[in-house]
């Protein structure tokens, strides 16, 4: 079953044609990795799925993007509803200047949840899912800024999971982390696909190889090749893919 499906997606930043007709489908409960050199459009494409590109002036998007079968650029879609359904984790950990507890509860609160008991349970569950609970359970009232970078990123993952999205987008989630925190986060991604569909943008090809089931290679705004991760890395069909994964450019 497909969680995310796009048909002939074009995106323009003013005159710049950033995405050139991308058609692909991402499977439910799988990890799909986007790789490609800087500026290839992989992050831009990812940000279409929760309409984060709406925030940038002068962006024009054409084509269809369906999340769990719903066309998210139809006029009757509420963007905040969509973003509850499609969570996102960013390159740099960006916890709010609030307590650890309030960071995770934030998504619930802004979406109107008032029940204290429910919020407490959900915060605990999300922190457990993000493999952070044991490290923070005694200091939930402490500021999130007291956590290490790796812990902060897992807090941001917990924060995204708390509102029970079906798809989680990750935009280079480990690029600001040390190797140990990176390993921990990758392990976490593995576990999360049991319940979530994960789309991850990464600069690191080894990482794509380690965490993903499917990999898509983007180049100059085009989807060059999309296949099972193993196939793409061992037997690429396109010369450009081969050049990139063998390190001839990047």
């Amino acid at each position, binding site marked *: 079953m497909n969680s995310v499906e796009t048909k002939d997606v074009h995106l323009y930043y003013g005159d710049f044609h950033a995405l050139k007709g991308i058609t692909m489908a991402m499977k439910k409960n799988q990890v799909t990795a986007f790789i490609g050199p800087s500026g290839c459009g992989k992050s831009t494409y990812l940000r279409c799925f929760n309409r*984060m590109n709406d925030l940038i002036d002068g962006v024009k998007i054409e084509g269809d993007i369906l999340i769990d079968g719903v066309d998210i650029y139809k006029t009757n879609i509420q963007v905040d509803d969509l973003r509850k359904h499609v969570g996102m984790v*960013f390159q740099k950990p960006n916890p709010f200047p609030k*307590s650890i507890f309030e960071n995770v509860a934030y*998504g619930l609160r802004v979406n109107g949840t008032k029940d204290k008991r429910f919020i407490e349970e959900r915060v605990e569950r999300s922190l457990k899912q993000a493999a952070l609970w044991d490290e923070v359970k005694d200091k939930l009232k402490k500021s999130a800024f007291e956590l290490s970078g790796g812990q902060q990123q897992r807090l941001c993952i917990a924060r995204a999971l708390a509102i029970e999205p079906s798809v989680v987008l990750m935009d280079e989630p480990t690029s600001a982390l040390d190797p140990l925190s990176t390993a921990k986060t990758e392990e976490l991604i593995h576990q999360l696909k049991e319940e979530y569909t994960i789309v991850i943008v990464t600069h690191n090809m080894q990482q794509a190889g380690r965490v993903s089931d499917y990999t898509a290679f983007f180049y100059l705004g085009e989807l060059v090749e999309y296949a099972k991760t193993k196939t793409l890395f061992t037997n690429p069909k396109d010369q450009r893919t081969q050049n990139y994964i063998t390190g001839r450019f990047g």
Partner: protein
Amino acid sequence: MAFGTTSSSHKSKKLAQSAAFFIFRLLSFSVVAILLVILGFILVQGISVISWEFLTEMPREGMTEGGIFPALVGTLCLVAGSMLFAFPIGILSGIYIHEYAKDSWFKRFVKLMTNNLAGVPSIVFGLFGMTLFVNQFGFGDSILAGSLTLGLLALPVVIRTTEESLKSIDDSFRIGSLALGATKWQTVSRVVLPMAFPNIITGLILSIGRVSGETAPILFTVAAYFLPKLPTSIFDQVMALPYHLYVISTSGTDIEASRAMAYGTAFVLILIVLLANLLANWLRRYFGKKVKMN
């Protein structure tokens, strides 16, 4: 040339650096020195008249004796009144300009006008206030007219302060909040404003310092030459510290006899501004700590 030995070019480089730093240091010290000299001068000249009575008594004997109580109260009324007017309007405009307004000709126009407003000479505000508030609206020379005029003067400062404080908040916090399904207003009110609050507060208090020392805007709108009683309503005239200082230094009944009173008044005025700045600093630190915790 072997590594580790000192060449002549190296020496001259070092010398140039030392000379540059020496000049920079000298100049920054001189700024501090100027401030200290001004403060010291006023303190030495005015300290003899500073007393509890000076702060709490009416002026007497053609303002050569007694205190500055009505002027002190007048200035506090004007500061409070102008802030009541300038803070809400200024803060809300600042939030609108920075967080809501799309980058359009309208936004650029509003920003340009705000900057221009900040550059208008204060005497022009005074004339404007007299024409509009005193005459047109019929408030007469009153606390209300004076406060509104001072408020107009403070408005661009408040708007700019709010804008700058919001600008200093990294966009990643806004994006993080929006990505969780928060609306723009929830993002602004729950994440951005609490973070910007310490800086906004600081800017506001600094604008109080500015307003409390202004003379020209109150000249034709509220300030009384000599009025040894306290106001009972916002339609009363009051004395005010800066104008009182001007009066007893230039056009009092006996300028020589009130010289010490003038320095005492100046000292109190400066003290108010310094206290406001200290308060601003303290509040910023206090709220800065609090924001991280909640």
